[in-house]
Every structure is written in C-alpha cells, then in structure tokens.
C-alpha cells in the first residue's frame, strides 16, 4: 500500500468505526482532495461527513475546533501545509490553549501535506512543523512510512489534544509497503529504530527517513560504518528515552531534517542530547537540514538547498572521522 493509500485507509477506518469523525477541507469532497487523500470518502459517507468549504483555512480550522467542543472529532485538511499560515491563529491561540484555560478537550487533527522535492516553489514546499512544536498544547506527528501514516493517523484522531499531522507529499506515491488492514494503532511518542546500528545515530523523521535509511545501507554495504537510524515519528510527544539510549550506544549523532536549519527541531534535539548524554558523546552533535532560504522553484536550485545522499554522507564521514 502506498503512503497516501494508507492515509485514506486510516480515514475510512476511523469514519466507519466512529460516527463523530468527519472531514473538513477544500476540494476534499467529490473531487477527493488535491492529492486524492480523501478519494471515495465523499461517495461513501456523504456531504455531512466529508465537508467541502470555501477557501477559508482559518474558517475551517476554527469550525473544526468549534465542532470538537460538541463531541465531534474533525479531521481538517490543508491543501498544502504552506497554507497553514492562514490558520495559525486558530491553532496557536485557540486550539492550543483551550485545555489549559477551559479544561476541555479539542480532539482535532489538521492534516498537512508538507515538504519539498516536487518543484512546488516557495509556497508549496514548506516543512512548518517546528512552529507548532514551540506552542505548548499542540501535538506534532510526522510519519515516515506507509504503516506509520496509518497507525499514527488513527492514534491522532483518537487523541484528545489538537494534532498537527505532517504528511510528506514526496512520500505519497513513492513509498509502498505492507500496511496492516483494519485496526492498527501506532502510539504517539514512541520512536522506532528504523535500522539497528552501533557506530552512529542518525536521528530523523518524516520526509528524510527514506534518505537516512538509504545512506545507512550504503555505508553498511561499503563496510564503512554500521549506522543506527532513529525515526522519531512524533516531535510532540517526543521519545527522549529512545534518543538517549541510541546515543549512549553509538556516541556519535547526526540529526537530520528537511525543514531549514536555524531554530529547526534539530536545535532542540542537540540541546536535549548535550544536556542529558554529554558524557556519552565522542563528537559534537551535528545537524543537517535545508539551507536557510525559501524553497526555490527550479529543480536545480531546489536540489541545492535540500539534504541529499551526498550531503548526509559527508556529514556522516565527518562525524566518523572526528
């Protein structure tokens, strides 16, 4: 099953199971969504459960929040994660503070097709996850495999906090794997060891997971190093224990993400690792991320700013040689 089919499967499964789940977004109805994540769901569940809206990102996220106060579990779709800027206030001001101020759950999920590598240009390529990590009260989930896309989405829908769910759109149809049918839950806050290794911890999530695994396999094949790949799966909640236990085993750490570098999630990871496992380190913790710029449109330029097999490989070499 592809990554996007896994998302569709999770939505359908939860909608069958729980009549309080409905979908709300732009062009998600009969059209099936810009990426076809909701394909067939309008036909199956009707217009009251797959709700097409005007172009109102704040309006539709606000509506999801409002409906969630009355027993519903809405799943909102951003057509592209870039457009979440239009709904920023609803998420950080309203959704994130409601439990703290009112003692009420806000069980909404906002699905965000994110990431670069498709020549989407500056406004269809962003990875905005860290903006929401900084706001207390929001959960942030970034699946990197089809089975996690399903299992984490089901957990997110069942969660009583607002969840930002970042789906990397380059993975939508490029990744295919076995996905369990029916009930399949992957808990939030549990990292996965995507590849067991002993020489270096490569910590990543979402769109750069396949890249991390590819580099690790290449190093193993060439007999250069045995790299452990940690897939965080969710940034909030964060599985700090899994991170530290890998770091203590390998003593060398590369943190990788597709979001740009400065004040990205990698900065938080480096801080946590040096605070909690400084004595275990044999080299400074290294970050690799996109160049600090808007994501450029031309494929040749876009390739330059994104992490690549070559840039990840050299960062690994540098750490191993330290």
């Amino acid at each position, binding site marked *: 099953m592809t990554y996007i089919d896994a998302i569709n499967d999770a939505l359908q499964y939860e909608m069958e199971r729980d009549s309080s789940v409905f979908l709300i977004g732009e062009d998600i109805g009969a059209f099936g969504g810009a990426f076809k994540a909701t394909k067939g769901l309008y036909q199956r569940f009707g217009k009251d459960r797959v709700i097409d809206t005007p172009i109102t990102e704040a309006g539709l996220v606000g509506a999801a929040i*409002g409906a969630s106060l009355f*027993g519903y579990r809405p799943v909102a779709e951003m057509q592209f994660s870039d457009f979440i800027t239009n709904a920023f206030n609803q998420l950080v001001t309203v959704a994130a503070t409601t439990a703290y101020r009112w*003692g009420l759950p806000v069980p909404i999920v906002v699905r965000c097709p994110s990431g670069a590598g498709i020549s989407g240009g500056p406004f269809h390529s962003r990875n905005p996850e860290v903006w929401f990590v900084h706001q207390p009260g929001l959960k942030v989930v970034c699946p990197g495999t089809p089975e996690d896309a399903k299992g984490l989405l089901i957990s997110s829908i069942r969660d009583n906090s607002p969840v930002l769910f970042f789906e990397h759109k380059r993975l939508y149809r490029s990744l295919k794997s076995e996905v369990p049918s029916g009930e399949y839950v992957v808990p939030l806050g549990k990292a996965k060891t995507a590849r067991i290794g002993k020489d270096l911890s490569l910590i990543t999530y979402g769109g750069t997971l396949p890249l991390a695994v590819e580099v690790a396999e290449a190093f193993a094949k060439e007999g250069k190093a045995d790299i452990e790949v940690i897939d965080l799966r969710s940034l909030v909640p964060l599985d700090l224990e899994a991170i530290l236990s890998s770091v203590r085993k390998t003593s060398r750490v590369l943190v990788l993400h597709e979001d740009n570098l400065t004040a990205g999630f990698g900065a938080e990871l480096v801080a946590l690792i040096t605070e909690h496992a400084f004595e275990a380190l044999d080299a400074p913790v290294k970050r690799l991320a996109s160049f600090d710029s808007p994501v450029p449109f031309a494929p040749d330029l876009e390739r330059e700013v994104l992490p690549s097999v070559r840039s990840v490989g050299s960062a690994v070499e540098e750490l191993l040689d330290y």
Partner: protein
Amino acid sequence: MTKAELIVAYENMLLAREFDHAMINLYRQSKIVGGVYAQIGNEASSVGTAMALQEGDIIFPMHRDNGAHFVRGMTPREMAINFLFRRGSITRGTDGTGHFADPEKKIYGNVSHLGAMVPVAVGAALAQKLSKSGFVVLNYIGDGGASVGEVHEGLMMASVQQLPFVLVIENNQYAYSTPVAAQTHNPRFSDRAIGYGIPGVTVDGTDIEAVFSATSQAIEFARAGNGPTIIETTTMRMRGHAEHDPFDYVPKELLEEWDRKDPVLRTATLLLNKGASESELTSMQQQAKSEIEEAVAYANTLPAPDAAEAFKNVFFQ
C-alpha cells in the same frame, strides 16, 4: 416584552452594572490584576440578546458581555472568583475576565483575539446542524473586531452551510481609541450581511425591547433552518477600552448624548410604564448591589490558586 421579561432583563442589567462598578473600584484600589473591561452602556445589548436564547442554545460572548453571562446562569460568585483569580475559579487561575467556558451552561467565552472566535462559534453551529440538535449559536463581536479576516471566513462558512448561527455586532463606536469613522467607510455594520446573502438588521442597542425582539426573530429563523443573521446593536462604550484608559479621545458631548439613553434607566422607565412601582425598582437595585458585594466579599475570603495548577492540563487530561 412582558413585565415579567422586563424584570428579568432589569435584574440582569443591574447585576452587570454593579459588577462593573465593583471591578472598577477594585482596580482603583490595585486589588485586581489585568484589565477591567467595563460594559457600562452596553447592558441592553448583552442582556437582551442572551435572553432571546432558549434552554440548550449556545452562547459565545465577548469579554465585556457580563450581562449575557448572568442571563445564562453564571453566578456573581463564580464571576468574582474568576476575576479575582481565587482558588476554585472556573479557569483554575489560568485566564481572566470573561475568558472562560462552562459547558453545562453552554457558555463558551473568548480569546483576546475576538475575531478568532467567530469561526469557532460557527463550528459549534456546524455541530448543531450535524447532530440535528435544534440548538442555535449566538456569538458576539464588536465594531473593532468585525474588521478581522477570521470574521469574514466564519461568515462565509456559516452562510454557505446555512448554519444555525447569529452574530451580534456590538457597535460601541470605538475600537480602543479608533472611532468607527476611521474603521470603515460604511458605518452600517449590518450591511455586511448583504455580501453573505443573509439577513442583517441594525437596532438601537440601548433599547432592550428592540434588541430582544430582533434577536428572538433571528434565533427562530436560524432554528427553522434558514441560516445565519447579523444583528448590529448600536451602543456606546461609556468607559475607556479598559480602566487604565482615560478615554480623553471621546468628545464629552458624545458621552452626554448617550448618557441620556442609558439602557438601565431606559429599562426602568419601561418597567414603570408597565405598572412597576418606584419602590419595586429600588429594591431590585439594592438586591443587585448586595448580591455583587456579597460575591466579591466571598471571593476575597478564598486563597490564591494552588501553585501546582500552573503545570496542569497543558494537554487535556
């Protein structure tokens, strides 16, 4: 309105006015933190609109709408405990003024970005439509907040989905220091309804009967499945934006003009015309004053919230 309805209106308007006076006094004595956003001049709007709701209907009031809170069952004690940030407050001390929710009373307050609450209230109305509950959502915004883009987005959704939603625009002439003339080229806020293809009406917000009647019609229109309405209530903010504000930017003549239309006095006159006696009115006034005094005194006996509250419920537990 019947005499009985007018009595309810008058009692709640008095509570709102007395509560404002009590909070202003505490502010002047530095016994209250944060802002005190009085609604003096606006009581007929908040009370008259809220009285048009039926049991089970839902209200999203603004920070100034104390009158609406009292109508929907908040007690002076509950209000005082929250304003005075005491242990046992409905927000546990996490947020002040009217920023609270009480699902049992179907009250959902606001965030300071008032325009942001319109899409949320519209979502509450969507939930009523989906569940076929038959309940209506009443939401408020001011002349200032009405400029915010999220208000437009909420109304787009409410109108296209024909949701059971009523938006009251309390036009109290000033957004902080900015007069309506500097906010909009069209000072008739209800005209905005035309763009959404929904009814819009402007009523004198100091006239309790006009407010009650317009809101009752809009609510029944919404309940019958005919979609949203915008009601503009024209009032005057007779105090500053909050009590720190000397509001010297408001011409004295304007305040005098609106003072002659004081909604509490106007309602008293209506009651006298319905056969109420001066002594009945005086006893209602004394009753409201003593209820508020008792509530504030009670709140003052309570300790501050437990410090551990600061760390709880960032995520719903």
